[in-house]
């Protein structure tokens, strides 16, 4: 039931929520990561995600399985965007359904926290000054030219 996908098409949270919906489940918690117009004080105009699919799938499946084991949820799922995104675009969606909302909150948070640090996904930002850069990959040499 739980699913993870990488999508080059715009994510549609309402449809995704429907996939998780279950007549026995009262509580649905979702996280959406929207593309911001700034990062570390710099203006961002757009960005692009690169995903290494084979390991992203393996790792995401592990994360979802862990969430189902650790929390009393009925289902969890996530979708991550790939390719170019505009400001306000949806980079990632995570949904969790549970009988009790506290478990849905915890599971949703766990999944997004783990996705951000474990999946082989890279984000390239394009700045308003024309520059661009891979997030979390700033060179120490560039950072400290002295």
């Amino acid at each position, binding site marked *: 039931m739980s699913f993870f996908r990488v999508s080059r098409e715009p994510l549609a949270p309402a449809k995704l929520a429907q996939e998780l919906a279950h007549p026995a489940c009262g509580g649905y918690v979702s996280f959406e*990561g929207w593309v911001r117009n700034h990062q570390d004080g710099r203006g961002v105009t757009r960005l692009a*995600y*690169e995903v*290494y699919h*084979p*390991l992203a799938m*393996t*790792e995401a499946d592990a994360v979802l399985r862990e969430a189902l084991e650790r929390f009393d949820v009925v289902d969890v799922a996530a979708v*991550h965007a790939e390719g170019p995104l505009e400001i306000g675009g949806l*980079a*990632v969606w995570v949904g969790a359904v549970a009988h009790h909302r506290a478990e849905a909150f915890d599971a949703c948070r766990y999944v*997004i926290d783990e*996705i*951000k*640090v*474990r*999946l*082989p*996904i*890279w*984000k*390239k930002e394009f700045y308003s000054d024309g520059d661009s850069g*891979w*997030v*979390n*990959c700033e*060179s*120490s*040499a560039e950072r400290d030219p002295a």
Partner: protein
Amino acid sequence: MQLTVRYFAIYRDATGIDQEQVEAPVATPAELFENRLATYPGLERFEAARVAVNDEMVPWEHPLKDGDQVLFFPPVAGG
């Protein structure tokens, strides 16, 4: 040792290539990275960089075998 090496994100930018075949006297991904650094000075061994061999995450000191496919992952930034 004959290896396939794949570069992602900033490592692709630094090398200018997606992947290459490498014949190199190395025993671990850590040594392979140093070896590739000699060819591509733009590579950087970030603290959060990771390595996978044949689509499994491994430690930098994982023993390599002939024919392995080594994936160098710069720090990730999903979500």
